[in-house]
């Protein structure tokens, strides 16, 4: 095998380093192919995760509608799968033909993992076909559990495929420190290259982000079907589906910043200058844009919930509070988006009168930002809780005490967040960084304990009326579209951040990009590229969903039909 790799390396040495792509250039061609492939891949990896969860809820709770929902998720997967493979092939061919020497370098190191990748892709595809086409055949008894196991397997193959692909791109970001420009690629062992500093943080971050993304796209799909629905039953079904998609997306989004924090920490530990370039260098403005996008996500997600409470009997009693929740979210978003350590030249520094803006400098520090985002997460959780409690009245004797304890937990969590936020202004940076852990722990503890109390308290609760699924104003559905577009755009932006911090290196400080496109573009250009990619992706998604609709009628089943599943 080693001989083969030396041959590959010899071939690589004799290859032209680069070729250009007509009209748009090689960088743009690869950028579009990689981005759209990634978006489809995120969708087909994220959706199976909650497809198996909803199927399990259907089996355990014996509720047919969850089983049908799961099948509908999977039907979306089927049509998205081929698009993922096509764009993957486009990306591979572009890399092999436009960056031949760099591609040969990667194959010399990662060859065996690429073969494993292909094998797993086959397994994943056939498991998906079995999972979907076997749905009605294996719907009872043990066969149903066997079918559910197929869903688990689908996730396992998909996750391994993603981990393998992640190892290639994280190697480009953070090659092991003993790899130098003089190191022959064939002499680098596969595992040494795979297990690089940012591999596992990226794996975890993408795993969660895929769930968020999948939920958002499913939500947009449901909202389209809701708007196009011709019957009340259909409208009710897609209203519910949109709610589930949004719930999944926002719930996973709340965890995502913690995975992002871990990734950032690993980047700093791997190379300080890379971390500083990312957070305070030419990319510093990117985080202001990110803050704006996440503010849109929080606002749109909460808005959807508040509007949704209009179809829940008993929700009126919570309506007066929404304006205060909105105020906290808006204030939090403003603080989070406040610039601080912007890259500035001597003229800008002179105009500012110092290193920081006299007023914004105080709001732009991490103490203020961490406080803002944690309060926004708490506020969003409170919205969910009100939504959940809207049409029930607990009857357990300790209901009042339980509610007071819940309120106390919210107050305590907010107090901890505020205390460490303010205290952060009076301590060294290294101590301040540690405070964010306490803030996060307070918020997560509050979410966990309040949820547990709420679940126990809701047992046997008096119903104030059933949720009137389908009675949602159309404007709420446009909020779901904004969520999907924003999540997709945010994914493109973060991809640019991750890739861009390598600057003019194919492989950080090992293999330099010497093309005319080596400079990392400014945010304005990147934004145009991201928007083009998002537009292409959403257009294709709309097209293949439409095709899917032509091939098969919707799988939604009215409540009066089969009531039981899994037994």
């Amino acid at each position, binding site marked *: 095998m080693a001989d083969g790799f030396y041959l590959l390396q010899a071939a690589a040495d004799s290859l032209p380093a680069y070729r250009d792509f007509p009209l748009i250039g090689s960088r743009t061609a690869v950028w579009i192919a990689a981005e759209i492939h990634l978006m489809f891949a995120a969708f087909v990896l994220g959706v199976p995760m909650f497809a198996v969860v909803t199927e399990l809820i259907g089996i355990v709770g014996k509720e047919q509608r969850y089983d049908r929902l799961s099948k509908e998720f999977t039907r979306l997967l089927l049509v998205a799968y081929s698009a993922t493979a096509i764009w993957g092939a486009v990306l591979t061919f572009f890399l092999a033909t436009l960056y031949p020497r760099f591609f040969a370098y990667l194959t010399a190191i990662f060859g065996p993992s690429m073969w494993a990748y292909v094998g797993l892709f086959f397994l994943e595809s056939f498991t998906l076909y079995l999972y979907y086409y076997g749905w009605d055949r294996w719907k009872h008894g043990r066969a149903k559990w066997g079918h559910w196991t197929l869903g688990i397997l689908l996730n396992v193959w998909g996750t391994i495929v993603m981990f393998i692909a992640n190892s290639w791109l994280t190697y480009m970001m953070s090659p092991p420190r003993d790899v130098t420009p003089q190191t022959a690629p064939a002499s680098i062992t596969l595992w040494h290259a795979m297990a690089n500093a940012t591999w596992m943080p990226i794996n975890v971050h993408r795993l969660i982000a895929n769930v968020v993304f999948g939920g958002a796209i499913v939500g947009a799909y449901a909202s389209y079907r809701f708007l*196009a629905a011709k019957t009340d039953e259909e409208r009710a079904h897609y209203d519910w589906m949109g709610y589930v998609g949004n719930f999944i997306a926002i719930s996973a989004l709340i965890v995502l910043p913690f995975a992002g924090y871990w990734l950032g920490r690993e980047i700093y530990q791997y190379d300080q200058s890379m971390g500083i370039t990312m957070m305070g260098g030419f990319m510093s403005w990117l985080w202001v844009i990110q803050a704006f996008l996440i503010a849109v996500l929080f606002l749109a997600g909460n808005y959807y919930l508040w509007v949704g409470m209009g179809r829940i009997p008993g929700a009126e009693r919570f309506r007066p509070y929404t304006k205060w929740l909105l105020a906290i979210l808006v204030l939090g978003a403003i603080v989070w988006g406040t610039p601080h350590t912007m*890259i500035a030249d001597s003229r800008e520094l002179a105009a500012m009168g110092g290193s920081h803006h006299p007023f914004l400098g105080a709001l732009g520090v991490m103490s203020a930002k961490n406080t803002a985002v944690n309060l926004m997460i708490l506020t969003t959780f409170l919205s969910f809780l009100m939504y959940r409690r809207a049409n029930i009245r607990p009857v357990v004797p300790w209901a009042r005490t339980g509610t007071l304890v819940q309120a106390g937990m919210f107050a305590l969590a907010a107090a901890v967040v505020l205390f460490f936020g303010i205290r952060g202004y009076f301590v060294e940076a290294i101590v301040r960084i540690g405070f964010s852990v306490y803030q996060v722990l307070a918020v997560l503890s509050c979410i966990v304990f309040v949820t547990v109390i709420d679940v126990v308290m809701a047992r046997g609760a008096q119903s104030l009326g059933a949720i009137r699924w389908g009675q949602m104003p159309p404007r709420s559905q446009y909020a779901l579209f904004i969520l999907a577009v924003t999540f997709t755009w945010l994914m493109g932006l973060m991809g640019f951040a991750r890739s861009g911090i390598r600057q003019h290196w194919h492989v950080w*400080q090992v293999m330099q990009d010497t093309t005319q496109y080596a400079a990392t573009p400014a*945010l304005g250009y990147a934004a145009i590229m991201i928007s083009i990619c998002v537009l292409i992706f959403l257009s294709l998604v709309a097209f293949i969903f439409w095709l899917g609709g032509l091939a098969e009628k919707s799988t939604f089943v009215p409540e009066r039909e089969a009531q039981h599943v899994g037994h």
Partner: protein
Amino acid sequence: MWATNLKIVGVVLGTLALYTLIANKIPQVQSEVPRALALGADVTPEQLVRAGEQVFNGIGGCTTCHGLGTRAPNLLTDEKGAGPIGARCGKRETGKSCKAYLYESLTQPGAFVVTGYEPIMPDMSRTLSPQQIWAVIAFLESQSGTVDVGASDIPAGNQGGLTPGASPGNSGAPRLANGNTDPMTLFHAAGCVGCHKIGAEGGAIGPDLTHIGARASATYIRESILDPGAKIAKGFERFAGIMPKTFGDQMTAAQLEALVRFLASRK
């Protein structure tokens, strides 16, 4: 249904247009590729200053930390009443000229760390050519100081090339402690004292080395100097990556062994 479709398309396009517009309205900074400086043997201080400003604001990435106040000292504006860097660089280290101090700061950033800051600056000789480094020094000297960098400082044979990692050559800048093998001299010259405590002096970023010989062998100490990331002392994981990996290139074998023996003997 067409009206609904049009509304959806409008919402999607409107959202994309808004994000694109905002991203184009903020300051646009492109990360440039390092380019060779074409400075001849007759280069004037003015030309060096102009070239240095470009490196400082561009590929050097200096503005990322310097001038922002929290991560590293301001260089272009006043720092605690001492004026811009050109006015204070000659007073930073006793007996060291402004030029020698700035050269040391760029190529051995751990040698002297200003009180109140962490040793996070990378060795710029890894990413900038000697010409670029000297141009930056000239630019920094020009900030309320006197520019005394000239063509004679720039190493011969590097007049047009971009060779990051090349040795500084003829510069007036000293090799590490001028080849001195006295361990404590080395300990200061290499900047170890900035992070490691030994006896009554030193920082607390890295492990206390006062009794290092009692808990580590000479082999371990040697490895830690040459490859600091190989093993991270317990309790100091968060500082992993800060210690420079360049001591193997900066010290002679005699210096390294003298330092290792000295530390191993501290029981």
